[in-house]
């Protein structure tokens, strides 16, 4: 069950499509204003998890508790090409009963860098512009939780930076975000926590720092390289002292860190 203040609480979530079990008892919590990255290979169950949270897919068992209104941007989305950006946001304002009016639409379009093309039809926008419009659409009605499924897949580096800044801005406003992305570097840069899903299960979870765990210490001495695989950065002064006391000459010390990518590949079975 979700705790008070949770924007999303997923408990023992299972989803079966015929013989294929897409989710095998997933537990996940996202606190208020928390930015959580969801990583995993294709077919791991990430989109299924997000769609169940949105109510688009029925779970086989388990529960999803939402802390308030949600905004959602699907991985494969499309907006009516005959609507302008402003009209699209207006439609979603009506459906979400948002009282924000023109001011909210203007602010959101400015946030995603589309204020200049508010009257342009969706059909005349590039895929990247449509993706940014999708993010603005998801933010209509001041949701407590944003579920973004690959929100930067069609964006160029500048667009990705805009989205990263936007996500940080959202966090500062107390909006929780579940970011489903293949871009590990992006997740590492902005997310407070990361959950890695593989074969329908959460196989690793923690902060990016925790998941980029220490991988030991290497010390270059006069007698060659000494490796201390269980040692951390905090162990370095003691190790150096012990080696010097033992009469060895120390030339260089390297703290080996395993990157998020290494951890990811390790837990999803990529190597």
């Amino acid at each position, binding site marked *: 069950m979700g705790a008070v203040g949770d924007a999303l609480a997923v408990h023992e979530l299972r989803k079966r499509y015929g013989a294929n079990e897409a989710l095998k008892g997933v537990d996940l919590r996202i606190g208020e204003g928390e930015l959580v990255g969801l990583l995993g290979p294709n077919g791991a169950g990430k989109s299924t998890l997000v769609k169940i949270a949105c109510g*688009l897919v*029925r779970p086989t068992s388990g529960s999803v508790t939402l802390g308030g209104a949600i905004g959602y941007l699907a991985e*494969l*989305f499309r907006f009516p090409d005959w609507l302008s950006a402003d009209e699209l946001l207006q439609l979603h304002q009506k459906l979400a009963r948002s009282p924000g009016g023109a001011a909210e639409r203007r602010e959101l379009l400015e946030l995603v860098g589309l204020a200049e093309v508010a009257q342009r039809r969706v059909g005349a926008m590039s895929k990247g512009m449509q993706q940014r419009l999708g993010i603005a659409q998801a933010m209509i009605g001041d949701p407590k939780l944003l579920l973004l499924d690959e929100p930067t897949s069609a964006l160029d580096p500048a667009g990705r930076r805009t989205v990263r800044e936007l996500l940080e801005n959202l966090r500062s406003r107390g909006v929780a975000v579940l970011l489903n992305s293949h871009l590990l570097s992006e997740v590492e840069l902005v997310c407070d926590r990361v959950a890695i899903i593989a074969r329908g299960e959460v196989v690793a979870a923690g902060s990016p720092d925790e998941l980029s765990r220490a991988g030991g210490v290497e010390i270059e001495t006069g007698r060659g390289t000494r490796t201390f695989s269980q040692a951390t950065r905090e162990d370095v002064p003691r190790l150096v002292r012990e080696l010097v006391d033992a009469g060895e000459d120390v030339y260089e010390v390297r703290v080996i860190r395993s990157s998020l990518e290494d951890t990811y590949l390790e837990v999803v079975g990529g190597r």
Partner: protein
Amino acid sequence: MRGALIIASFALQESVRRRVFVVVALLTIAFLALYGLGTWQIAKSADEIGDTNSNGIEGRVVAGATLLGLSMFATLFLGAILAVFLTLGAVRGDAERGLLQPLLVRPISRGTFLAGRFIAAASVCAAYVIAVFLASAVITDIFVDWWPDRIVGPALELGVAVAIIAALALAGSVVLSSTANGIAVFMLFGAGLTAGLLGQIAEALSSDTLADVSKGASWVLPFEALYQSALSHITADTIGFTRFAIDLGPFGGAQAFGAGLWPYVVVYSAAVGAAALWAFRRRDL
């Protein structure tokens, strides 16, 4: 209800922007012009129209009822096309294109979405067939000098008939792809017409079995029953040899389905709506 009206207005706005109504209006004007031309030519060439001939048959009534019956057939067909094309991809088609998901997450219930799409399609199609039927009646009156015995009842029956076709197409869109749904609904429409034809053959051959099959099929596809009922109502007060002559004509098999038809239509529509909602709620998007 508010959400349903927003969805309905959105669907109608799409039809306006995509110029669906402009195309429909232009084609309908062409249809009415052709109908007027045909009616004028028939009225001009048939000298006996307007007179009662030696057999006691009022040619003007027979010609007027037959021509308007023909127009009603075409009107229902045009209305069915409109109903099918406004709804055939409303659920599965839009979900496959990724258009539906952002709307449903807002959140609006799936029932609200279906209700909105039905309100949009049914109101447009019903208004359309009623307008075309009334225009045809006026054209018939102008050229043949004949006005149907009932006008409001048949107009409503045609309107509701096409609303039922819209409901069937919308329900089909939940489970079928756009193409399959379009084919399925037109085949159902064809089955309804076949039921009507069977009724006419039954009338000509005095076959009770065929008449029962026709009537049964019309109850299963009540848009056909409503169409038949509308046809019979335009000559509801016509009697004698003129009635006999109309019965021998192409729309002579038309039968009234009694007072039970309207309650049945309400129950039928509710059942179609409930089945569509049940299937939609079970559908993963």
